[in-house]
């Protein structure tokens, strides 16, 4: 079991290992960045830092018309990304993923409280976002 931040994207549920999450903030005011890859929603002023905010749904291929309301700040200090999601539901203990998934951005999935929860591979996500900028 390890601690995860659970979040919603459309009708689906995902979770990020808590050690990869530094905080969760409102979407706030996003300044658009012309020329940025499609997954970039904009940049945000996070207490004087410039935080790039990406649409996690677009990356995972979740089509949902919902407005992204929350931003999960993930990554390490020198390379953090805001991942916009529909909402954050819980911080909870989840077992190691035992369901296999096809997505390169998931470490697998678990069944918890009757829901299927995809475990996001933050390192892979960050690597993909970095590669997208090329």
């Amino acid at each position: 079991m390890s601690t995860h931040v659970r979040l919603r994207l459309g009708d689906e549920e995902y979770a990020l290992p808590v050690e990869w999450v530094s905080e969760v903030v409102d979407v706030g005011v996003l300044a658009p960045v012309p020329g940025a890859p499609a997954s970039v929603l904009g940049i945000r002023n996070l207490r004087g830092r410039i935080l790039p905010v990406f649409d996690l749904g677009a990356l995972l291929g979740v089509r949902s018309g919902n407005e992204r309301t929350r931003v999960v700040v993930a990554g390490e200090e020198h390379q953090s990304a805001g991942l916009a999601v529909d909402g954050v539901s819980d911080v909870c203990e989840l077992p190691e993923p035992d369901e296999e998934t096809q997505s390169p951005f998931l470490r697998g999935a678990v069944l918890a409280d009757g829901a299927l929860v995809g475990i996001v591979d933050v390192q892979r996500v960050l690597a993909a976002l970095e590669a997208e900028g090329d």
Partner: protein
Amino acid sequence: MDDAEFLDIFRDEANERLDNIVDTLLALERGDATDDALNVLFRDAHTIKGGAGMLGLDDVRSLAHAFEDVLAGARDSGGLPLALVEPLLRAADTLRAKVAGRDEPTAGLLEELAHGRASLLGKAAPASVDEAEALSSQRVQPSRTVRVPTEKVDRLLDLVGETVLHRRRLEYSLGDRLGEEVAGDEFDIGERLFDELKDAAIQMRTLPLATIIGHLPRAVRDIASASGKQVELFVTGAETELDRIILESLSEPLAHLLRNAVAHGIEPPDERRRTGKPATGRVELRAEQRGRQVEITVADDGRGVPREVLAEAGRDGSLTDVLTRPGYSTAVEVTEFAGRGVGLDAVRAHVETYGGQLEIASEPGQGTTVVLHLPLALALLDVLLFERGGAPFAVPLASVAEVVAVEDKHALEEQPVLVLRGRTVPLFDLAELLDAEAPPLAKTPPAVVLNGGGRRVALACDRLLGEEEVVVKPLGTLLGRIRGYLGASILGDGRIALVLDPLHLADGPGRTRSARSVALVPEPVRDPKKVLVVEDSFTVRELQRSILEAAGYRVETARDGREALERLERDPEIGLLLTDLEMPVMDGLELTRAIRADPIRASLPIMIVTTRGSDDDRRQGLEAGADAYMAKRSFDQQALLDSVGQLLAR
């Protein structure tokens, strides 16, 4: 600290020591080394060996050990033969590669060094005695330097930048009170302290040029010997300091300029003798601080640029412009060294990216001088701010040629051009250039004329916001490779301005075509409404001001009814009045009646906020013409903002 951090520290230190080693070896070869040179070399090698041993980098340790052995031998035998300089230089290169984590074979080198040592001692190489012991008595002074991770220094500068913003907000909110003696004096003291803090923080992020030119004498020597030339490099002002970020990126352009000087500038020895010059050419690298700029000069006493080129420069702008045309080269033939790396156009682009300038002068037969004018510090940049589609943008002030109103506009092949004093400048709508969506421009919009890489381009925008000194923050590793931006800055109102890279803008559109078009701001933003707060109590006045400002309103204040009327007279933008009842000079009821009696302002929404909360007071206020009445007793922020919102929406 974990191993990775130790490793970083070791790398920094080892690289510094290796720079020192190469310098000292070259000095020995030239014959102008200090008497202490062998000891210095020994100490440097010994330090590297020690660190490598601690971190378990056995390859590095054994190579440094062999290096040390040769030096010990040289010291014992009374000097280092010049024949050994070459293998030691190669050993230094290999050490550098290994320290950087690259895998390079060392076996051959180790054998060569062992032979070197054997030849010094005239016998087969035994294991060396521990010279470290012998040296410990002459150890260097304990260091008075503290190593600080660069992120910490960057954070400090970030905070300084935020203080800039805070001071601007403070200045704004103090407003008229800055005229009062005490407040004004205190503000001035703060201003001075802040300037000192800023300078100190900037200095922490600057490093001497010496930190990046360690390998250059070696490079010059290699290029010269490969092209059969004799060249001596003179370095002055290596202690001149520059912003770390600029410095780190300067290494390549400087190497290129020196390569140019040796490969294209300096003539072969016999040609030099024929023209009455000393056989050994002279290349100079000079750095000097001038005000808030640093000048770095690379000069040679070679053949200079051909007369045809100078003539072309005379007809066609400056020599700098001619020589920095993309792909331009003065190379008669491409040699191993000349064809490599970046061209002068790239050097210029580089310098201009950081808000600097490149200047080239040349005299046929006498030589060429290239001067890089660079800002001392990059983090704080003077920019021009402007707005397009509601989003703020900035460009380095150094690259702004002028600001004009778009009046004399023409087009060829649908590319609009602006005519300025008889010359044309390509004109772009900034939004279009960035491939972003924004409402159409006004009929005669303002345009910012930029110099980028020798080309000029005019950017039309909605309005100018003025000049400001801002902190430029990088977009980070995830967005850093999007071309066209130097970074972003957070403005006084919390908004983010993208800092545009003039060089990429000058390339025109097409840069971002592959990306999707983004709307700069989804809906047009209107100027926030302005509220006049009339209140004699300082505390209440400032409380109301901060609540309203936090909600995005612009706020003016007055201390009594008379002052309020004067403000209204001067400022037609005020859309709502918030007033107390009891005030000196003219109270709230009188003020309300006066406004209602004035035909121009009779419809101005008025809200009374007072401690007098009885029904009678309320009736009086409403009879005088107020639109809303709020008792301070029941005062809560949300209720105030709701009422303000309702009144302004009418």
